């Protein structure tokens, strides 16, 4: 090998060039690597010359059309000494040949990330690079990471390399890229950090065999222990172990060998090279080889290591989760100082669980105790909960499916509850809450509030647009359902739709608060603060509005005074609801907020009098009170909670429209809603 120490493979100050840098994978990984290591000087991709990989504002990686153009444009001191190949399989050989023939003197190592490179090309790459004294890792390597120097090539460590790789004394060499990352996580739990993480790739030919890497590790003073993940296929380990015996290899190893299941079957494992193709290549044979080299029984969890015979050559583990325990035991036995003082034994730590009814059937050993979401994930979960207010649903074809209704052959059901039982035992309001929210009322008084809002929505007199709709339809000689449709067709975002706006308004105000139970008097503090904050904001907006002459947006459902000249206005229907709450000593955060708002607005001079909270707001408050805990528990979407208040108004008003229809058809004459021509005004266009 050209490299003489492991740091020759990758160190701080290396200059990386990236082939096919604009590809899906390369593009993403390169940007993360640059933020972590800042070691990429440029890349190339056919037809993409002149592009840039933007890392952050004012920082980018130049993209050239080909490798030659990269050399022409970069100053010589920036010419890459390491190349990472992301080219598609059929282009790997051409790209590599170009690099090798152009830059044999500057390029020291080539990392081939590409998968599905043919075995013939792999072999040719080996010959070509050997002749030019260039080291090759791959094909199908994930890359390597030099943790102490804080540099990497490839994707080792994913998008958060620091999260997994903490500087330390163990060098990981793995046939699986994922296992580099995974084993580093387990080791850190045992207080052991990583010196180097190396993914060898596991194609049929591994172009930097284990022996070559072990030679480099042998010369590395900072590596105290070597961790190996090995799969079937190839004689790499046999050759390495023979050499290690001959030179009396100085570092202890911990090895895990996977893939024994493939020994006796035709089972095709995940990696192309994990195939037992002859004597010495099977997993069991590799286990024998390592046991023979280690001359120490395999590690058994919970069993202390012998005090008389030391595992000087290391340990073989039989389960991956034995790694931290075995590593700690090895470090202690050989008196190697661990890199970190902490020790977190591995255990089942469920982040989220809901075993439902099954939990009651499980024996104690299968019952999972509550887990703890560790840092930094805990914070990310919190952020998501904040960002994603309410339930998020998965969309599907609903043509013949419904959560709301079903029929079990005995009875129609509403959210699984038999309509027969509901008819017998529950009120209309109870059933309505169940049908619209998916859950029965959580408090008894909710049904009374819903009843009052429904009745309040029935009518506001024959002159209202919606009542007129029904009367017009009756006057035209339509059927009853058409009159109801006419009523529904004449309510909208302005007439009745304000309830929906009020629900949106309240949700915006309280979404980021700690309000979980709107009926708890403890919510009072939150409400007072929210109202005060909002009034302050309104005051500023009003000031700006005055200066700029731009009208400011009004609070929905406020300022619809029935008794306009009174200092305190109110809507008598809303008052019925408020008085019911007061009489029954029920605190309601949303009603309280609206009243606080109206009062504070008058106090702050935003309005001349205390504005009325109208019935649309009251309907919104009632239904949002019912929905709020469900939203907080992510049992209900916010879209549903926003729609319900308007539906409540529409339901009441449709009943009201029906009443107008009945009345009109009994006493009215056909066409009596017609406006005589004489009363119509003809407006001329200017």
């Amino acid at each position, binding site marked *: 090998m050209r490299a003489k120490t492991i740091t020759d493979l990758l160190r701080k100050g290396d200059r990386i060039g990236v082939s096919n840098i604009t590809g899906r994978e390369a593009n993403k990984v390169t940007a993360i690597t640059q933020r972590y290591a800042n070691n990429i000087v440029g890349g190339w991709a056919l037809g993409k010359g002149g592009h840039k990989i933007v890392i952050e504002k004012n920082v980018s990686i130049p993209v050239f059309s080909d490798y030659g153009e990269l050399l022409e444009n970069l100053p010589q001191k920036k010419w890459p000494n390491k190349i990472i190949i992301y080219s598609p399989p059929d282009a790997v050989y051409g790209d590599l040949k170009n690099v090798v023939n152009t830059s044999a003197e500057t390029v020291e190592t080539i990392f081939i990330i590409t998968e599905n490179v043919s075995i013939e090309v792999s072999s040719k790459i080996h010959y070509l690079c050997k002749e030019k004294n260039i080291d090759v890792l791959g094909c199908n390597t*994930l890359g390597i990471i030099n943790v102490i120097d804080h540099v990497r090539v490839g994707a080792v460590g994913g998008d958060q390399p620091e999260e997994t790789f903490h500087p330390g004394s163990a060098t990981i060499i793995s046939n699986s890229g994922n296992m580099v990352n995974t084993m580093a996580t387990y080791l850190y739990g045992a207080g052991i950090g990583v010196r180097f993480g190396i993914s060898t790739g596991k194609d049929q030919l591994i172009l930097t065999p284990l022996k070559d890497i072990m030679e480099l590790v042998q010369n590395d003073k900072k590596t105290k222990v070597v961790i190996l993940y090995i799969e079937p296929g190839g004689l790499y380990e046999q050759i390495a172990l023979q050499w290690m015996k001959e030179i009396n290899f100085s570092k202890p190893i911990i090895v895990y060998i996977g893939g024994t299941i493939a020994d006796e079957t035709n089972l095709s494992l995940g990696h192309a090279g*994990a195939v037992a193709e002859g004597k010495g290549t099977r997993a069991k044979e590799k286990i024998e080889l390592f046991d023979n080299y280690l001359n120490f029984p395999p590690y058994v969890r919970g069993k202390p290591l012998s005090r008389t015979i030391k595992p000087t050559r290391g340990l073989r583990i039989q389960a991956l989760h034995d790694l931290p325990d075995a590593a700690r035991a090895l470090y202690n036995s050989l008196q190697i100082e661990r890199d970190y003082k902490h020790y977190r034994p591995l255990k089942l730590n469920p982040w989220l669980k809901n075993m439902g009814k099954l939990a009651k059937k499980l024996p104690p050993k299968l019952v999972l105790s509550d887990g703890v979401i560790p840092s930094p994930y805990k914070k990310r979960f919190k952020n998501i909960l904040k960002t994603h207010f309410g339930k998020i649903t998965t969309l599907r074809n609903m043509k013949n499916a419904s959560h709301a209704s079903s029929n079990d052959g005995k009875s129609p059901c509403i959210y699984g509850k038999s309509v027969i039982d509901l008819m017998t035992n529950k009120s209309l309001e109870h059933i309505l809450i169940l049908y619209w929210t998916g859950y029965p009322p959580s408090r008894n008084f909710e049904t009374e509030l819903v009843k009052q809002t429904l009745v309040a929505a029935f009518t506001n007199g024959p002159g209202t647009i919606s009542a007129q709709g029904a009367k017009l339809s009756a006057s035209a000689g339509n059927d009853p359902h058409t009159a109801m449709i006419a009523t529904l067709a004449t309510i909208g975002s302005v007439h009745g739709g304000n309830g929906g706006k009020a629900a949106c308004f309240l949700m915006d105000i309280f979404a980021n608060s700690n309000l979980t139970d709107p009926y708890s008097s403890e919510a009072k503090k939150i409400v007072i603060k929210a109202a005060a904050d909002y009034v302050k904001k309104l005051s500023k907006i009003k000031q700006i509005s005055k200066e700029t002459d731009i009208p400011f947006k009004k609070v929905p459902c406020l300022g619809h005074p029935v008794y306009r000249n009174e200092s305190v206005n109110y809507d008598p229907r809303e008052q019925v609801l408020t008085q019911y709450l007061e009489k029954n000593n029920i605190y309601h955060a949303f009603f309280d907020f609206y009243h606080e708002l109206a009062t504070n607005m008058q106090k702050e001079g935003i309005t001349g009098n205390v504005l009325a909270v109208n019935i649309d707001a009251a309907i919104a408050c009632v239904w949002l009170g019912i929905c709020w805990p469900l939203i907080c528990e992510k049992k209900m979407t916010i879209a549903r909670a926003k729609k319900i208040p308007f539906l409540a108004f529409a339901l009441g008003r449709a009943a009201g429209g029906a009443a107008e229809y009945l009345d009109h058809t009994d006493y009215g004459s056909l066409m009596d809603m017609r406006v005589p021509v004489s009363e119509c005004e003809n407006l001329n266009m200017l």
Partner: protein
Amino acid sequence: MNQQISELTFLKQLAPRFAILTPEFIEWPSQRQKIQDCFKKWPSAIAKPDILAGGRGKAGAMEMVDTARDAIQTLQRLSSLELKGRMARTSYLVEFIPTNYEVYTAITYDSRYLSPVITISLKGGVDVEQITEAEKKTFPIDIYKGLDVYQAGDILRSLKCPDKLISPIARAVVNLWDMFITSGMQMCEVNPWRITAENKAVACDFKAVYDNANFKQRNPGFELPEYPENISEFEEEMNRWNVSSYQGQAHVSDLNGKGILPILFGGGASTIVIETLIYNNGDPMFLSDFGGNPPYKRMYGTASICFKHKLADAKVLLILGGKANNTRIDITFQAIADALFANAYLRNGKELPVIVGRGGPGLVLGVSAMQRTLDELCWPYAIFGPETPISMVTQYTAELYNYLRTLNSKKA
């Protein structure tokens, strides 16, 4: 899975093209008269099944026949033979070549040299593992220069091959190399070459494997025959899906298990998980590796195929991988969750316990998506992060499955 090449394909297509001498042969079905004509020319013949399974000789699937009547009966029988889980496509009859010399040759790639190697032995006709190290020679071949007759001759000389046979065998071996390298193979074996009284080397049995990643094998110049395979519909559909795109992996091996449905990520993790499941009686339905950062549509398609074929019968669903470097967990988990939701009807309302473990980019978003779907389905679940080892999660899942199985058998 790389494409295997049978002896019959070699006899019909490859040997003539590369001037490799072979015995005369006739493919079943054939007219009685034609078979009778063969026996007029040949002293005797061997009936063989055309099947992509090794060890035909050991398994007694090749029979010496001396008459047309025997040949027809044997060919009929062998044409529907099943061996090592594989089915015969047809059968054929080859001329028997009498000889005093049988030579073994194989060309393959070797991890010791990182190059092609040729192995030759003058003790051919038996399994290579039965030939002692002293009786065979393995030499690396320069991939750029190839193998020439002088090198082949040197190897034969070192094996003490009689002088008169060196040239014909060396020429035959070089032709074999030409076929190997120009058609994109990863291994080929002729065992044995039978040397005729006229000192001609005749290839009397053959097997080879193409390297599917090698562009040369994509258009071999003839149509490769399709072999009836008794692989499951699931594996067949997934194999088709796997080759339909290079993005992400969609690798499965059907294990015909009845217990745990494993959606696994990463070659290493999938090996460890399946091994742990098997050793803990988890009865995995198949081995899978769906890593390689598949985009949403690809992952959705992969998961949908798994669920379409296996969800109805699964006892536990295991979605597990190590701490991903590259694979986006938010995208892959959302895709799996959506596919699960779309196929949940296959359970006919029966809940399915789901165990999940993963780490990597976009983990929290991915886990949240999975949780939402499982909540919506009202299925029991436990979701682990990257600090809980995959092997522990696997052991727990196997124990859970075994307990549920006991519970169900008690109920039954």
